[in-house]
């Protein structure tokens, strides 16, 4: 194991840098620019049982030090992901990939995960519970510890791969949701998804996003994300993947000190397609500067 490597739920990552779901597509746009095998892994676009177009446009708005998105989980559906995207990905990426899954009922999550569980290329299932629960009055699964736990149980019952629950920050007590997921059998947690926000167009006096509200990400959210990673990693004993506004090697180290075993990077890839490669390249020098021998030693060092 190298000085950058970490263990995520029993699978070794060469380094803790993971492009986050929704900001890396299914990998090929980036594979045109650099060899994406330098990544620890990456989390592919949120996949649902059926194909989805997502929300109307505009879906993107700029914010101070970040962005809002209301893409709405556009994806070709799990069957096409398995029959088309994964075979294409195999040609350019030779490591286990993280499969990001969304759904609108516990059964839907379970069906999608069951199909992806059979794919050799998939290393982890990252289950995004920020979506509205159609049977629960539209409230997101991730805002209710019991609803989140029900998704964990449904998915764990039909899969063998490690299940990482991706938590929403739009809650009062994120540690309570985290603990409920751990008790229900989650193998790991990842956080944070985007924070709910909005912008208005001053000329039209109307929301910029067609969906009115959208998810905030980018450097603006880093301190909020760091705080939540700190709280959650103190409350549970399963590994935590930290994300939210990470854009440099020092941000990666700070997230790991707060308790993250690995770190996902979203919006930074959109503004600088080389962001993840650059951060991986910069990590050794940053570690030397801070007197860090191996990254795995600093996880939770800030507690």
């Amino acid at each position, binding site marked *: 194991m190298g000085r950058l490597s970490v263990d995520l739920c029993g699978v070794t990552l060469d380094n803790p840098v993971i492009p986050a779901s929704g900001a890396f597509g299914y990998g090929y746009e980036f594979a*045109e620019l650099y060899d994406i095998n330098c990544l620890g892994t990456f989390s592919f676009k949120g996949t649902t049982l059926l194909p989805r177009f997502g929300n109307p*446009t505009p879906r993107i708005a700029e914010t101070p030090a970040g962005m809002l998105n209301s*893409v709405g989980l556009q994806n070709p559906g799990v069957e096409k992901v398995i029959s088309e995207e994964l075979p294409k990905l195999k040609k350019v990426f030779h490591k286990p990939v993280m499969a990001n899954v969304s759904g609108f009922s516990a059964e839907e999550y379970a069906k999608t995960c069951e199909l992806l569980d059979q794919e050799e290329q998939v290393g982890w299932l990252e289950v995004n519970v920020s979506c509205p629960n159609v049977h629960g009055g539209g409230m997101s699964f991730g805002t209710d510890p019991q609803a989140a736990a029900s998704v964990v149980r449904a998915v764990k019952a039909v899969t063998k791969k490690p299940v990482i629950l991706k938590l929403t920050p739009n809650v009062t007590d994120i540690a309570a949701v985290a603990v409920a997921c751990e008790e229900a059998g989650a193998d790991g947690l990842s956080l944070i998804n985007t924070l709910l926000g909005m912008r208005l167009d001053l000329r039209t006096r109307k929301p910029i996003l067609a969906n009115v509200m959208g998810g905030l990400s980018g450097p603006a959210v880093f301190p909020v994300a760091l705080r939540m990673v700190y709280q959650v990693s103190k409350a549970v004993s399963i590994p935590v993947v930290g994300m939210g506004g990470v854009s440099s090697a020092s941000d990666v180290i700070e997230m790991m000190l707060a308790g993250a075993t690995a770190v996902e990077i979203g919006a930074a890839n959109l503004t600088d397609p*080389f962001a993840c490669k650059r951060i991986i390249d910069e990590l050794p020098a940053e570690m030397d500067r801070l007197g860090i021998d191996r990254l795995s030693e600093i996880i939770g060092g800030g507690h």
Partner: protein
Amino acid sequence: MKDCILTVAENRPLTKEVYHMALRGDVRAFTAPGQFLNLKLEGQFLRRPISVCDLGEDSVTIIYKVVGRGTAQMAAMLPGEKLRALTGLGNGYDLTDAGEAPLLIGGGVGVPPMYLLAKRLLALGKPVQAVLGFNRASEVFYEEEFRALGCAVTVATADGSYGVRGFVTDALPETYSYYYCCGPEPMLRAVYRTAKGSGQLSFEKRMGCGFGACMGCSCKTITGYKRICREGPVLRKEEILWED
């Protein structure tokens, strides 16, 4: 697609709000007129997409309108300053359908991409007609540049202060083989409805990445979902599906 550092060679106003900027550097990633670049500006989180107006061996010209913080920042840039840019983005126009006498229709800052397209079509030996639309006389730009290339140019202004009174659709010629169009969405809709025959139209969407990674710019077409930044910005008339 390529990530490059370009140097500002020239940056001057064409009208009160519209600027012309020449950039020098590696522009080999551009393959067709109608493509765009995505500019990283200091202090702005997202990049700014701007169409290619003209292309040289190691230079690219853009024309932009100051509408907000980013474009205001661009207007203040001086020769010698550097800009990070993703180059060679988008599909661009397909010249193989042009026929014998293609028509170019540009409105406002939709005029610039028509310039390189005109050059390329003329180089194929085709006579080119251009209809350029603006709001008023003081906003007209590039009429002379199109004439200098050898295009037959008609200018329309919405308030009638210069050229034909009305929109580009009030100034379309009787005969042409095929059309190419770029402009604000209401103009695209009007051209789609009224222009005879077939053509290609270029669309604008708010973009997260500009290279296909975020799904921020998707639209529905007859031939499936497309990303305006990658399978667009140019769509064929036959595949367009207006969403409302």
